[in-house]
């Protein structure tokens, strides 16, 4: 995907979140077993169904406490991209989702 289309998709997601899209930000998975349940659910979502992926992953457009995408191990800072294969979507560094991990 080109940088331009990455940016377009990021803007689209930002608009959805700014518009009040309700995502499942809780509960935060306490361990990798609960984490895997969410990942498996994500894996069944159509790749192009961005909204559903955002909802299940629990995307929010702000940090939660001190947690934010920027420190998450799946986040590619330069590309502004979540590299978790089941998400594979852009994100701003100050956002967060419940699949946050370091």
């Amino acid at each position: 995907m080109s940088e331009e289309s990455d940016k377009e998709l990021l803007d689209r997601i930002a608009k959805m979140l700014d518009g009040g899209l309700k995502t499942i930000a809780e509960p935060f998975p306490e361990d990798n077993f609960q984490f895997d349940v969410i990942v498996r659910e994500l894996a069944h979502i159509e790749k192009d169904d961005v909204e559903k992926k955002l909802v299940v992953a629990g995307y929010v457009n702000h940090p939660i406490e001190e947690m934010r995408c920027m420190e998450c191990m799946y986040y590619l800072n330069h590309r502004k991209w979540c590299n978790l294969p089941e998400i594979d979507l852009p994100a701003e560094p100050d956002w967060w989702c419940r699949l946050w991990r370091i």
Partner: protein
Amino acid sequence: MANLLWLQGGACSGNTMSFLNAEEPSACDLVTDFGINILWHPSLGMELGNDLQQILKDCVSGKIKLDIFVFEGTVVNAPDGTGTWNRFAGRPMKEWVKELSAAADFVVAIGDCATWGGIPATAPNPTDSVGLQFLKKNIGGALGKTFKAKSGLPVINIPGCPAHPDWVTQILVAVATGRAGDLTLDEYQRPKTFFQSFTQTGCTRNMHFAYKVSTTQFGQRNGCLFYDLGCRGPMTHSPCNRILWNRQSSKTRAGMPCLGCTEPEFPFHDLMPGTVFKTQTVMGVPRELPLGVDKSSYIKYTGAAKAATPKWAEEDMFVV
């Protein structure tokens, strides 16, 4: 000339396969260049039945001087402590192990099963298996906590599943050529020359470890295997990335997470579903951190490292 006897208990022969692939020095070099006389080995010995039994009896009695006794596989105690599930040359193997260890100048345990029990001793340990002088992290095993061979050394543990062939042959050469005094052993009786550094030492993914870039799927050449795929390289003592396998690679170099097979707890978490090839986490933080790193430091370091990550670290650097 140093007489060496190699026996197998509860074993898959993996360490024998590894040993026979040794290159520096090779198994043949042990005989031709370093004066090791292999009295008997399960894959090399010619004797069978009474002839083999006589060799073992002569080693126990001292008629044949036993310089090095090598054991591969667990010492099986089942059923009910009798050890008869693993009979060899007319009696339970555990009895041969005890008597031969007492007769030997040096006792060397090869592979996880002989060192700490390995996979056979994983719960529920149906064969009641133990290592020669350890059961997992607990000292004791088949020979007991205070056991020392005639040389004064306890069992020399060369763990691994399997042990790297050159770890085996190099230690055997050191012992056979009178340089055992140069060996220093760690708390689990592993030669420090091999087991002081970490699997991560020399790993080609260290840059990605430093910049917190994760491998998210098997086969990716970029990224570190620690963060998501359960790699135990930062917590495991082994020279797997210093003394390469087949002289050219290692698990982590090939994209396979280190399983920590040189540590007494291997296989970790008793192989419970969801624990293999998966980093165990608590609230998004790895349950086990690189050795010597505390959680608070890890979190601070992660923030700094991610902020400093250069663009190239996020891209595939292995291009054709």
